[in-house]
């Protein structure tokens, strides 16, 4: 039994139009995505803006309504609205992208971090405060600051308060939606190191959603590449970076700026080649609607979206 299994997930947003404001069409934000997560590992979900990566994350945790498909968490279908899935809500938490807007500016740190605790656990005031202080200690924010407001903290500290809130209920899975893209590099390093540390402490599983391949490469064991609501490639970090098969993956990798100025010319040439290949072989990799094909396994860990016969 997989820890988390997503089967043929679809999230469509209606486009309203006409005189009666009826649904005329759908935007297929997530269009048939399937994957499995194992406990204790980090999974990267990469794509450009509009690829549906955030919607996938939000659909799993229940922030978007699922059009069709199943999400099985420890074997239980959590898309079934009738079933009581209180445990699931506790076990899966989210870290949001922008630490400046994901913390309520009118609440004190104590109230922000204690909110999940108040929802699920009946604690006395003293116990609650003690727990919040412990949590702040874990994320390296001074436990004395429980009565401060979010504006009194820097970006990195705020993001860590967001992490404290996410780990308050000892979750098993954390969905991190671009957790560092709003931060400066040095602060980014701090948050990334820290996420890795608490992963070991608490045996967390991460679904790490990002557009930054460099960061994903650093953090993740497994990477999926998404394009227009579908997966184009899925594999271990090594598969994706050393043996990319899909032209879209190659293009993304080629677009990462090289930090060594001596490789500059080489990188330009490489990028030009890949762009040319992308233009020429577009029809081999995408169907007539410009969407990716279904995934085909090419090794135990590596799947690529290729036309049926391979």
């Amino acid at each position, binding site marked *: 039994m997989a820890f988390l299994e997503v089967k043929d997930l679809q999230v469509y947003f209606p486009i309203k139009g006409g005189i009666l404001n009826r649904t005329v069409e759908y935007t297929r934000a997530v269009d048939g995505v399937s994957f499995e997560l194992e406990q204790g590992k980090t999974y990267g979900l990469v794509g450009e*803006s509009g690829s549906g990566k955030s919607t996938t994350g939000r659909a799993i945790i229940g922030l978007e309504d699922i059009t069709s498909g199943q999400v099985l968490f420890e074997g239980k279908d959590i898309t079934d609205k009738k079933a009581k899935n209180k445990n699931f809500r506790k076990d899966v938490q989210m870290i949001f992208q922008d630490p400046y807007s994901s913390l309520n500016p009118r609440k004190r740190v104590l109230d922000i971090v204690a909110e999940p605790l108040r929802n699920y656990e009946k604690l006395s005031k003293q116990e609650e405060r003690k727990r919040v202080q412990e949590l702040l200690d874990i994320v390296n924010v001074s436990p004395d600051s429980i009565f401060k407001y979010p504006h009194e903290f820097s970006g990195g500290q705020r993001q860590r308060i967001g992490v404290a809130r996410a780990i308050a209920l000892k979750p098993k899975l954390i969905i991190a939606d671009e957790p560092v893209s709003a931060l400066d*590099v040095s602060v980014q390093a701090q948050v990334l190191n820290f996420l890795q540390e608490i992963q070991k402490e608490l045996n967390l599983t991460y679904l790490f959603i990002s557009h930054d391949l460099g960061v994903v490469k650093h953090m993740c064991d497994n990477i999926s590449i998404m394009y227009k609501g579908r997966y184009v490639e899925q594999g271990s970090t090594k598969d994706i970076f050393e043996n990319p098969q899909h032209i879209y993956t190659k293009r*993304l990798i080629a677009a*990462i700026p090289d*930090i060594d*100025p001596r490789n500059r010319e080489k990188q330009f040439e490489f990028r030009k080649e890949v762009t040319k290949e992308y233009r020429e072989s577009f029809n081999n990799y995408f169907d007539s609607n410009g969407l990716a094909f279904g995934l085909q396994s090419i090794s135990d860990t590596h799947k690529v979206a290729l036309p049926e016969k391979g």
Partner: protein
Amino acid sequence: MSNELLKIKNLSTSFRIGDEYYAAVDDVTLTLNKNEVLGIVGESGSGKSALAFSVMRLHTKAKIEGEVLLNNQDIVTMPKSKLDKIRGDEMAMIFQDPLTALNPLTPIGGQIEETLFLHNRKLGQQGRKKRAVELLDLVGIPNAERVFEQFPHELSGGMRQRVIIAIAIANDPKLLIADEPTTALDVTIQAQILDLIRELKEKIHAGIILITHDLGVVAEMADRVAVMYAGQIVEIASVEKLFENPLHPYTRSLLNSVPVEGQDTLHVIQGVVPSLKNLPREGCRFAARIPWVDASAHEENPTMHEVESGHFVRCTCHEHFYIPDQNEEKGEQSNGIS
């Protein structure tokens, strides 16, 4: 004739908070040659955008001291009427956010024609339209004729950024300032825009100041790099030297915090970038963030030292700086986790 296009001499830009002025850009001296790309790197709050805005004189309330010489004309003291002639013509700027830099109520064509109209009255209506379409073509926008009629909201982020570049280069500027031109864009679009800027550089022979926080972008684009911290330039060198042999502790820390192959734990710079009000005004401004380096290593009044030809670094503390051992550092940080 010298090759020098822009010379910034002892430039300070101060903003008023309460009753006092605080310098966001503090005594910056720089030169930019023709046909050169100068990268300016730093974190948010380091003063890199304030510097760019000072060069363009876009600040309305700041106190600016020092000299900014563009082809020997001082921009700081120039009368407004003359400045209007130069800005958008001899020097132009590419702004960070393509979503907000364009007027949502005016078609694309009109926004390009505006710059052309203001700086080249001889060009008639027909001429302006022709030139505008030409420019859209030049920045790689397909169906330029159609885009000319469209409104900004009909274009994608990458396309809008191209339009902004088209406006910036409309009058063949000699100086182009690009303030985080790709930060709001996806990686593949970023690669396209950077390629475009590089191509345009060959075509229009402008000097470019590229402001970014992305070290990868600098490594790919710049000829020379200036690193800014807390309003000061702490290191200037050719791009090869800066990445091969970075000297200033800030530069080295920054390079070490970027994830690269085979690195387990990223280097974390202790503390935070000081806010404008709390900038240390005396001594080495980076000292507070490298407490393990002995205080005697810092100069009392750090100045720029030329270490090699063309490689300048502020303060002497780099001679005694080392990146502390990861484990040692980790032990310090993780106090209380277990």
